Structures are given as structure tokens and as C-alpha cells.
């Protein structure tokens, strides 16, 4: 089911009414589990299509229980490798093409995010102190396949999830929470349905322009596609977070002002936050801990860190897709972040942290750093949508995109001098505004000729 479908709205509303009908944690967990099962099942026309997902979930549960049993690192490592290999096979990674392929009817929607949650949970179980409550099948299902986070995250932490599950019986929905959550859902749906649709059309229009230099058109197309991806992905996250709040879940934010970043490390602190954090905890930190046993001098540690960042972001890029284009995307991400870290380390040594902060605050430096950071990321994303045979003038495109970002930054800085106080939450104007958004969404949902782009992250 798509978020912007009457069927999904009906499922969510039915679940919400049933959930709030009885103030009992077990009842409410059962309601969410049933709604989640219906939601996951809705992606298949035939139950057989879910075989791969069910197999993966079952093996994942086995890995979690294995982690709890605290086996040796070789056994646990082999089990993790097996699960990742199964994931790559089910997702039909091109490197595994010589192997027999899984049945073509098996679907893999949601599998990537299930993988992250399972690995996180298994490693946490392995490293936990004795006395941690066991992970039951219901809690496992709700963690990996929740109605809210199954398709595209965010990747919540299991301990937070478990704590919130146990308190569901005490949750009562007040009007302020209901308004804030509904407003966020409406905003998210509008981002996906209207803004991302418009940006997608603009992207296609820019690509067709032949009366401007190719590098300028390419740079602009990259930026528009980045904005499209942001509207599409952050809109779906708004829906998920708003929906979760109606059911008593405080899910983690996935986007916090990513376009204000002054370098790539900062950018990843605000873009797809839960994925970045996952890679930091379970890939980067272990690599550094491993290397840290041998790297004793500040210089060797710096190079170890550069290597760690390179490997981590390469893997993060690689996760996004199954073809060689994503290998290049991962390499570009890894190289970009590694160079950023190297530059930051060298400059901190030379200027100290305060000196570097002062340098970064200088207007021309800040504008250039901002422009090239966003432009670089936008260009790497062109590997997601590139047209075979079409010219991709990278260097010219990078400068063109950076110039556009710097121009937009200047307009933004002027505009931000004018403050808008907004409307009082819950007041008549805010109700009217919510009603207008709901009416627009209903019009879109009933208009069968209106084409809304797919959620990009559903494909991962």
C-alpha cells in the first residue's frame, strides 16, 4: 500500500480506532502487529511472494538468539556473513549473477531496513551484559516489520522500541499531540505528492534544456534531483513519524537541516541520520577500535580514521544499489568524506579547533564550503538517475551547482531577516490550514489521473 492511498488511510484509521478503544499494552501491541502484518502482506498478490522475506526474518531471529547465547567471534561472524550473503542474494546483487537466482516472484520490499535492525539487535545482544530481557517473537516482528518503519525507516534503536512498547497501555492521545501528528502527516504527504512531483517534472525539464551550457544544465539537474529526493524521502519520514506519534511511538528524526551543512561530515549528521548513526556505531567505531590497538601516534590514528571513514561511506553507498553505478557512488562518498576528515584533522592541528571554527565562520569560506558540500553530494546522486550515453560534465557541473547553492544561500540569508511568527497551534487559523491540506490530499487521492512518484527509498 502506498502512503497516499485510500486503502492505507483506511488501514491506519481502523488500527488507530482499535488501538485507542482499549487501554491495554498487550491489546495495543496486537493491534499494531495485525496492522503491520496486513501492511507487509499488501505488497504481495500471493503469499508465496513473501517467502524470501519470511526466510530472512526467520534467519534473522536465529541470529539474534545466537547473539544472546554469546558464541565465539568466529561463529557469530560466520552467522552475520551468512545473513548478509542471503540479503545480497535475495536482492540480486549483480556480483552474484553467476549463482542460481531466487525465484522471480519473491519480493524484497523493506528487506534493507530489516537487515539493519536485525544486525543491530544481534550485535547488541552479543555485547549486552547478562540480565537483558529476551527478545520475544512479537517484539522482534514489531521491531523489524512495524507498520510505521518497515519500508524506509527510520532505523530506531531496539531498547527505545522495547521501552515504548511496554508503555503503550498508558498512552492517551491529547489534542496537542493529535494536531501536531496530523499536521506532520499532512505536510509529509504534501511533500511527497505535490512538491516531489513538481521537482521530478522540473528535473526532467532541466535535462531537456539545450540552450544553456551542458555543465550548467547538469549541475542544475543534480541539485533539483537532490531536492526531489529530499522532498520524497523526508516527506515519507514525516508521515511515519506523525503516524507513530498517534500510536504512542517517538520515532527518531531522520533529517535535521542537512542543507545547512558546511562539510560532508556535517551533512551526514543531518541527512538520513539513523542510517549514518547505524554505520557509525556498527562499522566505523569497530574499525577504529580494531585499528586503535596498533595505531598509537596521533598521525597514524588520523590516517586510520581517514581509512575508516572511507570504508564506512563506501559500504553505505554500496548498500543503496546492486549495480556497478552504486560501487562508484560508494567510492565517491567514501573519498569525499575521507578527504574532508583528512583536511579537518590537518587544519585542526594547524589552527586548533577554535581557529578552524573561526575560519569556517568567515563569510566567503562558509559560502564556498556550503556550496561545494551540497554540490558534491548532489553530483554523486546523479549515479542514481543518470541516462546512459548522456554527457555528465562533472567538473563544470560541480562549479555550476556550487554557484547555484551559493546564490540560493544569499537569497535565504536576506529572506531570513524577515521573520514570520506563524499561527497558533490549535487555533482557528491552524485548523483551517490543516483542513486545507487535508482537502488537497483528498483531492489528490481521489484523482486517479494524478501520478505521484514512487517513494525512492522503498526501492532499497
Amino acid at each position, binding site marked *: 500500500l502506498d502512503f497516499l492511498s485510500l486503502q492505507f488511510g483506511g488501514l491506519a484509521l481502523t488500527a488507530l480506532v482499535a488501538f485507542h478503544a482499549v487501554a491495554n499494552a498487550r491489546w495495543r501491541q496486537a493491534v499494531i502487529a495485525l496492522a503491520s502484518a496486513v501492511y507487509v502482506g499488501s505488497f504481495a498478490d500471493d503469499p508465496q511472494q513473501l517467502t524470501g522475506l519470511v526466510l530472512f526474518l526467520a534467519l534473522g531471529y536465529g541470529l539474534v538468539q545466537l547473539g544472546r547465547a554469546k558464541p565465539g567471534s568466529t561463529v557469530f561472524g560466520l552467522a552475520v556473513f551468512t545473513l548478509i550473503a542471503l540479503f545480497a542474494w535475495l536482492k540480486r546483487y549483480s556480483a552474484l549473477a553467476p549463482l542460481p537466482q531466487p525465484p522471480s516472484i519473491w519480493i524484497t520490499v523493506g528487506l534493507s531496513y530489516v537487515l539493519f535492525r536485525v544486525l543491530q539487535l544481534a550485535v547488541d545482544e552479543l555485547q549486552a551484559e547478562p540480565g537483558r530481557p529476551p527478545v520475544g517473537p512479537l517484539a522482534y516482528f514489531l521491531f523489524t516489520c512495524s507498520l510505521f518503519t518497515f519500508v524506509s525507516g527510520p532505523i530506531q534503536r531496539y531498547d527505545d522500541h522495547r521501552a515504548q512498547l511496554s508503555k503503550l497501555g498508558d498512552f492517551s492521545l491529547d489534542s496537542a499531540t493529535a494536531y501536531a501528528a496530523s499536521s506532520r502527516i499532512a505536510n509529509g504527504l504534501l511533500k511527497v505528492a505535490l512538491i516531489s512531483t513538481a521537482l521530478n517534472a522540473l528535473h526532467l525539464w532541466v535535462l531537456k534544456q539545450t540552450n544553456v551550457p551542458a555543465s550548467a544544465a547538469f549541475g542544475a539537474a543534480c541539485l533539483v534531483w537532490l531536492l526531489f529526493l529530499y522532498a520524497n524521502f523526508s516527506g515519507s519520514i514525516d508521515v511515519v513519524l506523525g503516524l507513530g506519534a498517534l500510536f504512542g511511538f517517538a520515532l527518531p528524526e531522520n533529517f535535521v537541516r542537512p542543507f545547512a551543512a558546511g562539510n560532508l561530515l556535517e551533512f551526514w549528521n543531518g541527512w538520513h541520520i539513523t542510517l549514518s548513526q547505524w554505520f557509525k556505531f556498527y562499522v566505523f567505531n569497530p574499525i577504529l577500535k580494531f585499528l*586503535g590497538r596498533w595505531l598509537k601516534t596521533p598521525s597514524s590514528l588520523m590516517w586510520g*580514521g581517514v581509512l575508516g571513514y572511507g570504508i564506512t561511506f563506501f559500504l553505505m553507498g554500496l548498500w543503496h544499489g546492486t549495480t556497478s553505478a552504486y560501487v562508484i557512488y560508494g567510492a565517491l562518498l567514501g573519498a569525499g568524506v575521507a578527504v574532508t576528515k583528512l583536511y579537518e584533522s590537518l587544519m585542526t592541528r594547524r589552527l586548533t579547533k577554535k581557529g578552524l571554527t573561526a575560519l569556517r565562520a568567515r563569510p566567503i569560506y562558509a559560502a564556498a564550503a556550503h556550496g561545494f558540500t551540497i554540490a558534491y553530494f548532489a553530483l554523486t546522486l546523479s549515479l542514481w538517475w543518470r541516462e546512459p550515453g548522456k554527457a555528465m560534465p562533472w567538473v563544470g557541473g560541480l562549479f555550476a551547482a556550487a554557484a547555484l547553492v551559493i546564490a540560493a544561500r544569499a537569497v535565504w540569508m536576506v529572506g531570513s531577516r524577515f521573520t514570520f511568527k506563524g499561527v497558533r497551534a490549535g487555533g482557528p487559523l491552524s485548523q483551517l490550514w490543516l483542513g486545507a491540506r487535508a482537502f488537497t490530499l483528498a483531492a489528490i487521492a481521489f484523482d486517479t489521473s494524478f501520478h505521484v512518484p514512487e517513494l525512492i527509498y522503498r526501492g532499497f
Partner: protein
Amino acid sequence: MSEPAELRPRMTRVFREVFDDDALELTDSTSAADIDAWDSLMHITLVLAVEREFSIRLSAAEAGLLKNVGELYKLVSARGGK
């Protein structure tokens, strides 16, 4: 859980060695923002040094979620650091 009496001076010693600063003073709210050299790389060096000093192992999530020295004290106490 109450802190072992020696925890704070030993933690200060660990921080001083890791960040090579004999004048470093810690409070519960001391964080990466207060120490010039405390970045993501030195964070892991610090975690390794704390693990060695107190004979404990911090999990990936514990090491990643640490925000300040106060949280580190609590974690080491809860883990029964020796």
C-alpha cells in the same frame, strides 16, 4: 548505583593521558565541544583507554551514544569498573 570512590581521579588521569593535557579538569557536562582534540577518532581512543583502565568492555551502542563525561561515569559504574 553509587560510583566507586576512585572513579573520578582515575577517569581524569585517563583523559589527561589520552588528550595529552595535564591541566585538563573534568565535570559531568564536559563533552567533545569542550576539548579541542576530542573528535570521532579520539573518542574511540578514549573508549579503548577507559576499557583498559577499568577492565570493562563497552558495547558498540554504548560507545556511540556517549555524550559527556557524566554519562561515562554512570556507564563505568553500572558496568562495575574495577
